[in-house]
């Protein structure tokens, strides 16, 4: 139906709420421990033999892992690079995906079918199949050993999936709203910006977070296209830490924690967006 209320129903179901809270607690119980272990592992003193019993709080507690991780892996420099890539690539990527998804929802169905099919095919191409030809392309453009190849996937919306998700979201908006925009003589671009995009804000929040993580943890691309250690991104730095001797596991875990925290922050922010969406009953 058109123009009806959206969002969660406000039914006064205390019992249901309780169940949901219990469910949430269960989710926490399942999903959080691995991460806690990651943190706890990273705080273990490197060089000690593994403890035969589970230890949530390591003894002795030590931050040596972090110091050595930063030192050995060049994590600071790598973090900067990763941030640079993310700052450029994520907005660009979301922009491209949102625009393309919108265009798909509004152009002739025939063209949409073609592009959607192509996107699906693109989803199927394994990353390994792309490395070599892409390398050749970037070399032709003189862009190897720069950060450009790491940002370039933003042109794809990072993953064609995101374009398709946007497409579905935009398609689901009431047709009358688009009609109203047509009557108001909005250009497609402005319809997108002023009406469509604000209405799919949760999608944008979610996809931004996902794009960020994908960009942030992109490993294969930098491995192939980046030579200069000065241009290493976090996953590459982590990769080299991963080859430390097993007793230095805490060092690696510390690196992993450092690499994970920004992604977590972004997720938490995006998740706040979801919540804020809750607070507003929309019509």
């Amino acid at each position, binding site marked *: 139906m058109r123009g009806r209320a959206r969002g969660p129903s406000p039914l006064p179901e205390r019992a249901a709420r309780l169940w949901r809270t219990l469910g949430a607690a269960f989710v926490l119980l399942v999903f959080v421990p691995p991460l806690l272990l990651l943190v706890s592992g990273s705080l273990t003193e490197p060089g000690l033999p593994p403890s035969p019993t589970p230890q949530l709080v390591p003894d002795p507690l030590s931050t040596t892992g972090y110091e050595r991780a930063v030192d050995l892996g060049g994590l600071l420099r790598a973090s900067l690079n990763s941030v640079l890539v993310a700052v450029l690539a994520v907005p660009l990527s979301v922009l491209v995906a949102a625009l393309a998804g919108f265009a798909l929802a509004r152009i002739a169905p025939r063209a949409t079918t073609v592009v959607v099919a192509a996107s699906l095919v693109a989803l199927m191409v394994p990353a390994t199949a792309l490395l070599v030809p892409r390398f*050749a392309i970037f070399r032709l453009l003189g862009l190897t050993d720069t950060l450009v190849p790491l940002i370039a996937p933003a042109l794809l919306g990072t993953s064609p999936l995101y374009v398709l998700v946007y497409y579905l979201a935009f398609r689901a908006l009431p047709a009358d709203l688009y009609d109203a925009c047509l009557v108001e003589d909005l250009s497609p671009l402005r319809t997108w910006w002023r009406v469509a995009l604000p209405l799919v804000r949760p999608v944008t929040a979610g996809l931004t977070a996902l794009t960020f993580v994908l960009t942030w943890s992109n490993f294969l691309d930098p491995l*192939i296209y980046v030579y200069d250690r000065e241009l290493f991104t976090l996953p590459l730095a982590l990769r080299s830490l991963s080859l430390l*001797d*097993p*007793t230095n596991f805490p060092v690696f875990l510390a690196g992993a924690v450092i690499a994970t925290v920004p992604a977590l922050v972004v997720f938490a922010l995006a998740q706040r967006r979801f919540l804020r969406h809750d607070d507003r009953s929309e019509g």
Partner: protein
Amino acid sequence: GSGGGSASGDPVRLLVFGAPEELGAYRTLAEAYQQARTGERIQLIEASDRKDLLARLATSVAGGAPPDLFLMNYRFYGQFAAKGVVEPLDERIAASSVLDPADYYPVAMEAFRWGGAQLCLPQNVSSLAVYYNRTLFTRYGVPEPTAGWTWNDLVSTATLMTRDDRGLVIKGTEAEGAARLPAVHGLGVEPSIIRLAPLVWSNGGEIVDDPDRPTRLTLDSPAAREALRNLIDLRQAYGVVPSDAEVEAEDDESRFLNGRLAMLMTSRRATTNFRTITGFEWDVAPLPVYRQPVGVLHSDAYCMTRGSRNKDAAWRFMEYAMGEEGQRIIAATGRTVPSHMGVSRSPAFLDPDQPPRNSQVFLDAIPTVRALPTVSTWPEIEDLSYGILENAVHRGDKIDDVIRELDVKSRPMFARGENG
């Protein structure tokens, strides 16, 4: 930019891999070089492991922008050598006023000859040895391994050193589900063809039918079979090596580090790591012997790509790295046995203050060292045999099946391979 012209302003790009400390050593080397030769620039391209390095090398060659130099083990350089990616160095060596091939261990040099040409220059010449935990040996009153010990000595020593947590000798074969697990294992050895090869050779057998033009694995000869049998028995009959689950839980190197492995058969590479040990004393012993002492070569070399646009500068760096100073810097990590004879006999390598006291073992082994074949499909063959051998050791597959499987499955790989 990546392509670069032949302009000498471009840095020489050197592709290496290694754990962070190892990469640190290469950085030191590059800096030392740039310090020593003003105007020269080296750009390190750091891969973290062999797989990364291969992927990078292959893509960049295919993409038309290869690095100038790369560092590669002889077991894996075959595929690059065969495909004409590596620049032959004979002329440059001949013309060099710095490098004298005679300064280097011939066995290592030889390993990097392909079709009669010297393709790469070996940086090190390491070999297998048995690291052992002296403190443990002392505690249990077991004699330490000595030069010339036999396989049987190894087995009995290992058996004596396999102990439970009360210090009693225990047989690890009943480990699973049994009352108690060994707290200390007698020996650690990887079930791989590089570990197996010296044993086979020592027993008078061969790994392949023709070391220059191999077409198949020849583990079916009685000598090779015996060596393989014995390797498998370490786990299946005597239980002196950790089970697969135990290895997954804690690999042999950590086990040794943690003082719960009496002996470990591995290359010089482990030394750096073991130097962090503070809890006990350790040392190295030569490989045990069947009939005659034989070692197996571990060696990495600098190779120059044919597609390099900066060959002269690259060569200058090679000269430096292969020279005494360069060798000394790398040797200081403890990880390698320098290929430069002079350096290898110098304190840079034999430093008495640094464990193992008995580093001489590595030098002594060099004359007996043999190289594995350098067929271009060798990496595939190694991966294949590793899986099969691992199952043989840990699951106790029938030895005839193991040998047949190895033979049958590796033949097409040999057939596809190219030889130098």
